[in-house]
């Protein structure tokens, strides 16, 4: 029997603002516990929330990045429940009138598994804004609470159950994170809890029109964990179905060390949160002007940038996927490529040498010691045959170490390619004379021998001869 998975994701994203959503405590990670708190975010009785306009603006921007409809009229509601991370016994959230609805996220490209993902649109059901709750730490016989996180603006982004594979779920998360980075909405650092993700997955026989039983997976701390947990869970459910056993509706926990999901709890009766409109906050009316202003400030989306890069710079879709992975990198590439006569070569240098170097040094694009103009200059030195590709690698290392311009390095070290025919000729003579047996090998049909001779000439020239030219001349010489 053939099976297919139905996957939906619920993503919580902290909005990056200076202050919290309903009070003016700082919105910052990593401070001493309970130092960024006040009567409002501690939930003291009798206090009044005052909503942060920036949190609303950024949530609307997030909705626009996801092609959502933006509400003209929206409001906050109280979600009532009892838990020590929310001492006023309700969370201010949004129930029936979220800020954003009915959007979609486009996914495509090379997936996490390495397979190609066909282009698809994954539905975004809604994005609403709420307050984050406090962080609880379990000590054993008791628990402790840090309220620094309480009141940080938090978006809940709910997808439609449109994804069918771990790769698609991974791609959706990657795209979402990229868009939020591009538009400066959230830092999306999962390790800091700025991005959290719950997964729903069910499996059904392809010829079965109904849905399978939904299982929720928690404790997913990286995109990789999401991918692995889904792969595991889909297999587990398939096996149950093949044995004609029932998949239970339950919540399972991902165990990253062992690579398995384990039962957390079976579905209890649906929660009754008794939502009602938050009387302490006035409704929101999002005017066309406000929407327009937010839209004006949106960046180009990663998806359209990918497309444009392929068209304008004649690079492959894969190159474009890598180069747009981060906005800073995309900006860097574009600045280097825009004025270059060889944008494809610029892409290659950035993807192999530049990213390789940054990776080795543990640095980000922003921390690069050279700007995009240095890469462009390096490429143009190769393009106009001032230096060979081989020398270019040395110049690259040097410029990353010293921050010097590539032209200056070439000048200082006298690395210009030797194009003087008589000089090259003398190198050739010398190498042929010193390697008579290799020359014989070549003449008796061993192609490899030529490569060796070219290498010797290059060595003699300290890499400054043009390898193609050497190759051609040698061939001529030895065929006489």
């Amino acid at each position, binding site marked *: 029997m053939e099976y297919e998975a139905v996957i939906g994701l619920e993503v919580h994203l902290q909005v990056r603002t200076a202050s919290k959503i309903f009070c003016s405590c700082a919105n910052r990670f990593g401070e001493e516990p309970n130092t960024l708190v006040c009567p409002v975010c*501690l939930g003291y009785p009798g206090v009044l929330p*005052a909503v*942060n306009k920036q949190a609303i603006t950024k949530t609307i921007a997030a909705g626009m990045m996801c092609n959502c409809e933006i509400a003209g009229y929206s409001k906050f509601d109280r979600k009532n429940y009892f838990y020590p991370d929310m001492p006023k016994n309700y969370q201010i959230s949004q129930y029936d009138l979220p800020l954003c609805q009915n959007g979609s996220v486009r996914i495509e490209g090379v997936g996490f598994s390495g397979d190609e993902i066909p282009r698809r649109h994954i539905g975004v059901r809604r994005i609403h804004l709420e307050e984050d709750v406090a962080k609880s730490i379990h000590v054993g016989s008791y628990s402790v609470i840090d*309220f620094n996180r309480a009141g940080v603006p938090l978006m809940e982004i709910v997808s439609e159950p449109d994804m069918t594979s771990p790769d698609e779920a991974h791609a959706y998360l990657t795209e979402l994170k990229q868009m939020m980075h591009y538009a400066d909405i959230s830092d999306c650092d999962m390790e800091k809890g700025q991005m959290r993700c719950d997964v729903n997955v069910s499996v059904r026989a392809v010829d079965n029109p109904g849905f399978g039983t939904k299982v929720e997976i928690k404790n997913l701390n990286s995109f990789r964990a999401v991918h692995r947990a889904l792969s595991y869970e889909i297999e587990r459910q398939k096996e149950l179905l093949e044995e004609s056993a029932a998949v239970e509706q339950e919540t399972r926990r991902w165990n990253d060390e062992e690579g398995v999901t384990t039962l957390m709890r079976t579905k209890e009766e649906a929660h009754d949160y*008794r939502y009602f409109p938050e009387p302490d906050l006035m409704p929101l009316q999002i005017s066309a002007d406000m929407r327009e202003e937010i839209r004006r400030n949106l960046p180009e989306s990663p998806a359209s940038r990918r497309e444009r890069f392929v068209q304008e710079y004649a690079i492959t879709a894969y190159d474009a996927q890598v180069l747009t992975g981060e906005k800073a990198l995309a900006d860097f590439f574009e600045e280097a490529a825009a004025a270059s006569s060889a944008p494809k070569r610029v892409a290659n240098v950035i993807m192999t040498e530049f990213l390789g170097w940054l990776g080795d040094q543990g640095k980000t694009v922003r921390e690069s010691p050279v700007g995009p103009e240095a890469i462009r200059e390096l490429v143009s030195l190769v393009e106009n045959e001032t230096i060979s590709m081989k020398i270019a690698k040395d110049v690259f290392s040097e410029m990353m170490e010293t921050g010097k311009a590539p032209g200056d390095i070439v000048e200082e070290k006298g690395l210009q390619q030797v194009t003087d025919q008589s000089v090259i000729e003398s190198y050739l003579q010398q190498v042929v004379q010193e390697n008579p047996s290799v020359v014989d090998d070549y003449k008796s049909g061993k192609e490899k021998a030529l490569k060796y001779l070219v290498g010797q000439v290059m060595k003699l020239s300290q890499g400054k001869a043009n390898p193609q030219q050497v190759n051609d001349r040698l061939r001529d010489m030895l065929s006489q």
Partner: protein
Amino acid sequence: MGQGNGTSHIDVRYVADLARLELTDEEVEKFQGELESVLTYVDTLSRLDLSDIEPTAHANPQANVWREDGASESMCRDDVIRNAPDSAEGKYIRVPPIIEE
């Protein structure tokens, strides 16, 4: 809203349970009557012609009462700890063990 018998507006036991309140049978009966009359009063609205009235989420006709984003001083932690029922290490608020959700 209510679960249980059809004519009443409210299931007091259910609501009490949600609010983590333990009620005696007498209290259930008492509150059933009191809350019933409150909710019946709300029914008055359904006798009015409201067809020309815009629905609203708030009685006050204001919207967009917001503040600009900017951080300012928070509370002194010693005060935070002093106000808490219990604390740990002088920096955390201590609560009974939380059963993992």
